[in-house]
Structures are given as C-alpha cells and as structure tokens.
C-alpha cells in the first residue's frame, strides 16, 4: 500500500523539482532502404520513418498525461547514414534533407544518425560522407550528426580526427549567420554507443533491432533537492541518498519506456540514466556538485564530487532497471546548465577542468563555445585528447565544441532553447599542428588484447 508521503513525494518531484522524461527516442533501422540511387533511397527513408514513427508524438503525449510526468522530447535515431549512402557517394545531402523533412512533419525536435563509424579506418565513401557533414547541417534544421573516431578496441583514427577539425570549422563557417549553430548538432565520439537516446550523438546501431524505444530519464533537480537538507551528512550518506533518488527516477523511466514500446509496436531497448541538465534554474548538475560542498563547480574537488555523483546514479539506476544503457552518466554541457554557465562566466571553470571531469562522467567537452579563430588542428587536438581519455578508460567520451565565427574570449553566444547560452572559453594558444598533420592511427591500447 502506498503511503501518503510517497504520493506527495512523486507529485512534488514533478511539480517543484523538474522531474521529467527527457526523451523518448525511437531507433529505426534504415538498412532496408538501401537503393542504387540517392533519390530512391531518400524516398524510401522518408516513407519508412513516417510509417514507423507516425504515432510517436501522440503516444508520448498520452503517456505523459496518464502518468503525470512530462515527456520533454520525442526523437528519432537512425542507422548511421554513411552505411546507406555508400552506393551513390556524392548524393548524401538528399538523404539529409529527406530525414529533416520527416522530422519536421512528425513534429519531433531532433533526428540523429547522420553518422559514420570510422574508429579504425575510413573508406573513400566514408571520407566523402564526412565531407558532406557541414553542408548537411547547414541545409537542415533538425538533423544531428556524429562520428566515432576511436575505441578501446581499435585505437584512434587520427586521419579522421584531423579531418573533423576542418569539418567543425567549415560547419561553423556555413552557419555563421546563426553563430555557428551547426556545430551544436555535431559530436565526435570515442567508444560511441549504439543505443544512446540523447542528441546530438544518437544513432541506431547496426547491432540493434528493427525499431527500438530508448528512453532518457532526467532529474538533476530531484537529486539536488534530495541532498539539499543534508548539512553535516557524510559523503557516504550523500551517496546513499543520490542512489535512492536515482532508483526512483529510473523506475519511472522504465515504466514509461516499456509502455511506449508496447504502444508504438517497437522493442523496449534501454533506459539511459544520464542526469541531463537544462538551462532553467533548478535543473542543474553543477548545482548538485555545489550542494555537495563546492563554492562553485570548477573548484578543486569538482572531479571527486562528480565521480561520486555519477557512480551513485548508476548504482541506483541498475537496481531499478535490468536494461540500462546508452551513455548513463552525468552530462556536463556548459551552455545547457545554468550552474556551468555561471561558473564559466565567473572564470571558475575552464576547458582543462572540464577535460578532467570527463574522465569520471559522461560524456565529454560538451557545448563549449570557443573563439572563432581557433585553428582546425587545435579542435582536432581537443578531440584527440578526449578520445584518448575514452580509449584508455574504456568509456564513451565526446567533443561538441562551437568555434563561434567572429567571437573571442569575453564574448558570449545565445543558441536559445535547450541549447542555452555559452560564454566563449579560452583554449590553449600553443599549436598541435605537427602532431595532427602526422595522420595515421594511435594503436589500440594494451588492455584491448583480452582474447
């Protein structure tokens, strides 16, 4: 029998603490759409998405009302597009536009999967595909793109890393009328996961079923509230409370994920435990760290506090669901978290501290605006550093930076909505030119040899 307090606790989580289901993401395999021409493939892609995801928005709305928990985003991820454009290299943009059109007509905010997996090598058609990314992001509104450049099993493809620096610069240039917004929809990964429901990095892996529902729960505000009245508590008591809170949040997500999958004739895939902040007050991961006892995120101690937060969330989450997956960690996107924005504005946090934090949480240098004149090789080097952290630590890492055209340190940029506001952060002025120009591959780490 439910107690009165339990009912009130749930109501308050939604009403006062921003508990929500951050995203219901439908993964759709596009492999049956491979045709010999771009036009035919684009037509099939559009039809298939419209048919499979026809009811995603209405089902999410009904579930939201039934359980009284807001479902913020309805999204779609698709098979990495580079796999379906191999036969007609050069016609990739037609597929990008077709995906964007489907997203708009379905009323979903982002569709992910304009992606390529080049962690070990890059074919000629994949190189062409990568080169199409700036145009694809500039000529669409809702399409997201990602490229996996490394893994713990294969090492890091430095040719791809080198190319991505240039691609990110070109994307910024092509979307300079929107402060380089195209770059906010692109992420470079190491150890990319196939079932991530969060953007910009969602794609539907080839090891996945035909149509799968993955759900991203959220609730930085709920966790923050739970530890708010714990002055004097020890760290283990804080960890225990976070764990219990994560359990409850994840159970809510699992219930909704299963129900959504049933109603949408799809498989239930995973629940992603990631604590995903938004720029509104009371929904910040940075504020949790500050509640644990830091005067600002970025202080010495931030990495340790984040490690305990991330670990406690996972422990509660895996107890709550047998199907935990995706990225499942705390996100630290600078522009999307009010506490991070404040810390960056005050100079309390810099890109080096962010890099250290990514060693203990998901996912990486995320939504960081950098000066527009940052050289491509420096961006490649940021990607290489992050990929190395992921490769050596067997975890996913990522880079989503925006070299904002014509802006410098001290300026700030407003992307709007969930993408938020970002002060331009300083990057090292020392050069990695020669390192990046070498090309080749960072060999797989010793611990990849497990057989």
């Amino acid at each position, binding site marked *: 029998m439910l107690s009165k307090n339990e009912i009130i606790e749930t109501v308050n989580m939604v009403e006062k603490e921003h508990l929500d289901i951050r995203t219901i993401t439908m993964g759709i395999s596009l492999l049956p759409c491979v045709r010999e021409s771009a036009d035919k493939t684009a037509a099939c892609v559009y039809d298939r998405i419209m048919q499979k995801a026809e009811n995603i928005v209405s089902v999410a709305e*009904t579930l939201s009302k039934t359980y*009284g928990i807001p479902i913020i985003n309805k999204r779609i991820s698709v098979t990495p597009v580079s796999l379906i454009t191999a036969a007609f290299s050069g016609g990739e943009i037609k597929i990008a536009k077709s995906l964007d059109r489907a997203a708009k007509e379905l009323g979903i905010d982002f569709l992910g999967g304009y992606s390529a997996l080049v962690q070990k090598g890059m074919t000629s058609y994949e190189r062409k595909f990568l080169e199409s990314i700036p145009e694809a992001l500039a000529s669409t509104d809702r399409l997201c793109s990602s490229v996996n450049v490394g893994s713990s099993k294969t090492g890091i493809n430095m040719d791809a890393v080198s190319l991505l620096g240039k691609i990110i610069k070109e994307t910024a240039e092509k979307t300079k009328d929107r402060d380089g917004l195209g770059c906010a929809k692109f992420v470079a990964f190491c150890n990319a996961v196939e079932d991530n429901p969060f953007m910009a990095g969602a794609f539907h892996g080839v090891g996945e079923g035909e149509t799968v529902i993955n759900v991203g729960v959220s609730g930085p505000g709920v966790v923050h509230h739970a530890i708010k009245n714990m002055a004097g508590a020890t760290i283990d008591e804080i960890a225990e409370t976070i764990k219990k809170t994560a359990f409850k949040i994840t159970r809510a997500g699992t219930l909704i994920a299963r129900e959504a999958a049933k109603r949408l004739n799809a498989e239930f895939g995973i629940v992603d435990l990631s604590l995903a902040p938004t720029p509104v007050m009371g929904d910040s991961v940075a504020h949790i760290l500050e509640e644990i006892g830091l005067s600002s995120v970025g202080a010495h101690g931030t990495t340790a506090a984040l490690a305990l937060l991330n670990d406690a969330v996972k422990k509660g989450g895996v107890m709550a669901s047998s199907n935990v997956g995706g990225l499942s960690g705390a996100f630290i996107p600078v522009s999307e978290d009010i506490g991070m924005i404040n810390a960056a504005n005050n100079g309390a946090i810099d890109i080096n501290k962010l890099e250290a934090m990514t060693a203990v949480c998901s996912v990486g240098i995320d939504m960081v605006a950098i000066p527009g004149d940052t050289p491509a090789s420096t961006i490649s080097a940021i990607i290489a550093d992050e990929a190395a952290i992921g490769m050596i630590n067997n975890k996913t890492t990522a880079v989503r930076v925006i070299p904002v055209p014509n802006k410098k340190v001290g300026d700030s940029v407003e992307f709007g909505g969930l993408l938020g506001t970002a002060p331009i952060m300083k990057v090292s002025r020392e050069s990695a030119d020669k390192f990046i120009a070498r090309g080749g591959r960072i060999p797989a780490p010793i611990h990849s040899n497990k057989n």
Partner: protein
Amino acid sequence: MKAIVSVIGKDKSGIIAKVSSALANKGVNIEDISQTIVQGNFTMIMVCDLADKISISELSDALDKTGKDAGVKIYVQHEDIFNAMHTL
C-alpha cells in the same frame, strides 16, 4: 484502472465536495480518501477506480476545470507510476 488524484492548495471550505462531486459526475468511484495539511497546504489524496468509464487524460482535463474553480491544483496519475517508484 486505478488512479491517484492528488489535490493541493490553500485550505478552504467545499474543496472535498467539489472534487468528489466532479468525480461522481464522471462515474468514478472513490476507494480511499485521506487529507492532511503539509507545510500549510491542504493536501488530499484519493484512490479512485475509473473502471472503463473514462480515461485518465479525460478525467485530468475535467478535474483541471474543477481545480481552477476551487483554487487548488489537481493531479491525476495512473497508480502504476507510484508503485514503480516506491515499491521494489
């Protein structure tokens, strides 16, 4: 199907009457009811059986109106969400 109806707001006379008559109008049976004051707020929790007479979203829309008239917030949620979050 069972739903939990939570009513939260400033205490004043007639809230229970308004909410329970709105439920009766929709053919909803109240199985359990409890009320308390939490941090100065009137809080009432009702366990309701909707049978197959009305969906939760329809009931939620109807009670939204009642809530506005009575100056309280009314939440209608499937009982499964509470069971999922609070029981092993």
